């Protein structure tokens, strides 16, 4: 309002105000500010027509806003007037700007001044008259105890006081207790005893719904794509397509691609809307508030907790989410450590392994509890590693103190379910899926190639696995598992299918629904409880998938940090696996 006369004030969220029994006198507000005021409810499109209408009228000069000026402290006002007169003598600006520029010059806001100089093509610091004047005025201000440090305080409190006055006259709180409900909810959600358990329960429920709920659409997609695949093969035969080409395209590219879509799409389509509901409710800032203490100890931001939660859904989404962290240092830490939390793609794998090996002997309900605990332990390991690595990064590569952390906790609001569905599916799910598909198609080709082309009847995949075997056994794994992790880099979901493909000697990815059939194959190929534990650890701690890496590259804009984000979890995983293997071997020798 200090820069231009063309101002329209839009008062949004009138529906919320009504709910809280706040009455706003828009006409009075308009009189007091001297500009047109339009009330809207942005959720309702029709209420926006009035805004468009007024905007149009202002553009046509049918309505001429005359914004009222803010009155500052009398000494400051005097200085502004003097400088204004000087500027009017020297320069030719639009008439509204003199007062504002004078204020900014007195305030010495270098950023804004340099941008003013750039746009108006002038240079104040080179003009001796302006400089002299400024020095004089600064002295006058100093004499009345207005220094460089408290100038801004003075200005802001004048603005605030006048705003408060307007607010007092315009708004009527008919119900003084309107925020009591919010306060009560906040008391519980951030209480010492319940705050953190409630948070874990909320997140637990979301994961559970995602894991359980995703199974059914996944099966449907599998059978649909399987049906299409058979038709594609028939079609290829009809065209007399050479077998190697149709195999490569259908069993290689098509199969990997549809596999990734079937396993990734349903969990994402469930997880993101659920997460967006929490976001819309206003719960996420409370999570950050609850956990801030732990993150502060590691010299990073409490908001990292939010990006971590998003990482459970998809690490790529979590990395994108790091934009909410203001400090560049803390943002980078959050990005680098995001892949420590297992994402949706790794969950099913973790659960399968936990079910087979850890709960394998216990059937039924208690079995599912045991495997849940095992998976939870892996998640806790991930969170612990996140904090540990964040701390180490803060002390070494990204040295620095925790920056200040000011976070607004907005009032709770009822989420809009329809919009959430649309927004989360289009903005997040399809975005992430699109990126995954770009990587999956070529990867499918490469995997097929390695599995089917070989020397002396031995496939390249086998050769690589044998080559990696000595190193892998140091980690308590075998060459095939490590190879599968390397080939699973486009999407973690295909790690288990590749392992099975290797063991069964097939040239294509294998889909097995029966957990115990998978278990038998794994045990026959020498898996022990140690293998299972190490596979679970390595699933949690290894290089992020290509989608995430691409996202990191885009967010940090640097190849160096992308490489580091690749190395940190991998090294952690290798070291930890070697450690558990060592311990296990010592025990074995000790027992026998």
């Amino acid at each position, binding site marked *: 309002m200090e820069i231009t006369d063309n101002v329209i004030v839009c008062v949004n969220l009138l529906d919320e105000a009504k709910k809280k029994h706040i009455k706003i006198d828009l006409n009075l507000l308009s009189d007091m500010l001297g500009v047109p005021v339009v009330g809207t409810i942005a959720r309702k499109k029709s209420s926006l027509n009035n805004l468009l209408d007024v905007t149009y009228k202002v553009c046509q000069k049918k309505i001429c806003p005359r914004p009222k000026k803010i009155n500052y402290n009398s000494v400051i006002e005097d200085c502004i007037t003097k400088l204004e007169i000087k500027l009017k003598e020297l320069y030719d600006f639009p008439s509204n700007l003199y007062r504002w520029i004078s204020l900014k010059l007195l305030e010495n806001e270098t950023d804004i001044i340099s941008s003013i100089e750039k746009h108006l093509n002038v240079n104040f610091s080179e003009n001796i008259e302006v400089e002299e004047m400024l020095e004089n005025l600064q002295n006058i201000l100093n004499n009345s105890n207005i220094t460089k440090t408290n100038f*801004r305080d003075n200005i802001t*409190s004048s603005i605030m006081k006048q705003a408060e006055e307007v607010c007092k006259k315009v708004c009527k709180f008919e119900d003084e207790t309107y925020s009591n409900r919010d306060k009560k909810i906040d008391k519980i959600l951030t209480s010492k005893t319940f705050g953190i358990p409630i948070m874990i329960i909320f997140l637990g429920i979301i994961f559970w719904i995602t894991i359980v709920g995703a199974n059914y659409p996944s099966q449907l997609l599998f059978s649909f794509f399987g049906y299409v695949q058979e038709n594609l093969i028939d079609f290829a035969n009809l065209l007399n397509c050479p077998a190697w080409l149709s195999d490569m395209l259908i069993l290689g590219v098509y199969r990997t691609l549809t596999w990734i879509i079937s396993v990734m799409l349903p969990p994402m389509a469930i997880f993101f809307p659920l997460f967006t509901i929490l976001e819309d409710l206003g719960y996420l800032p409370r999570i950050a508030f609850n956990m*801030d203490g732990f993150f502060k100890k590691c010299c990073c931001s409490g908001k990292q907790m939010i990006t971590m939660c998003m990482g459970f859904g998809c690490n790529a989404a979590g990395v994108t989410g790091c934009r909410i962290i203001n400090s560049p240092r803390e943002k980078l830490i959050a990005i680098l450590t995001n892949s420590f939390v297992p994402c949706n793609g790794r969950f099913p794998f973790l659960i399968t392994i936990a079910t087979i090996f850890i709960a394998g002997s216990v059937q039924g309900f208690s079995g599912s509890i045991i495997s849940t605990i095992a998976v939870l332990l892996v998640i806790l390991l991930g969170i612990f590693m996140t904090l540990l690595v964040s701390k180490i990064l803060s002390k070494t590569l990204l040295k620095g103190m925790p920056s*200040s*952390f000011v976070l607004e906790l907005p009032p709770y609001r009822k989420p809009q379910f329809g919009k959430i569905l649309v927004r989360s599916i289009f903005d997040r799910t399809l975005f992430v899926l699109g990126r995954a598909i770009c990587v999956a198609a070529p990867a499918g080709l490469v995997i097929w190639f390695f599995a089917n082309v070989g020397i002396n009847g031995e496939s390249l995949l086998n050769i690589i696995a044998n080559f990696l075997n000595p190193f892998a056994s140091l980690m308590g794994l075998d060459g095939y598992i490590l190879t599968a992790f390397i080939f699973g880099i486009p999407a973690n979901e295909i790690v288990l299918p590749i392992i099975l493909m290797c063991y069964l000697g097939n040239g294509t990815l294998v889909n097995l629904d029966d957990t115990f059939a998978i278990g038998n194959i794994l045990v026959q190929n020498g898996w022990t409880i140690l293998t299972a534990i190490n596979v679970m650890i390595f699933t949690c701690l290894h290089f992020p998938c290509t989608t995430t890496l691409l996202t990191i590259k885009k967010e940090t804009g640097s190849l160096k940090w992308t490489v580091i984000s690749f190395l940190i979890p991998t090294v952690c995983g290798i070291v930890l696996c070697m450690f558990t293997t060592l311990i296990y071997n010592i025990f074995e020798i000790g027992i026998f």
Partner: protein
Amino acid sequence: MRKILSLNNLLLNEVGYIYNLNCSEGVKKRLLDLGLVKDTCIVPVLKSPSKGIRAFDIRGSLIAIRDEDTNLISVYTKNT
């Protein structure tokens, strides 16, 4: 009688009024933009279970500030 103390010594639900911000420039600017000018009423209402941060009621909105920063904000109380 007016008693001046730093904001992190203000007890939960005790009413205080901003006296001075001694924080660094960047933080100060952010706090001023949030409306923490002199004489503003401020009430600590929530405490994080992980400690080190509290949320304050400022003009009806809830704003969380870390203890390092509230340590540098002085407030006065109006009770006798």
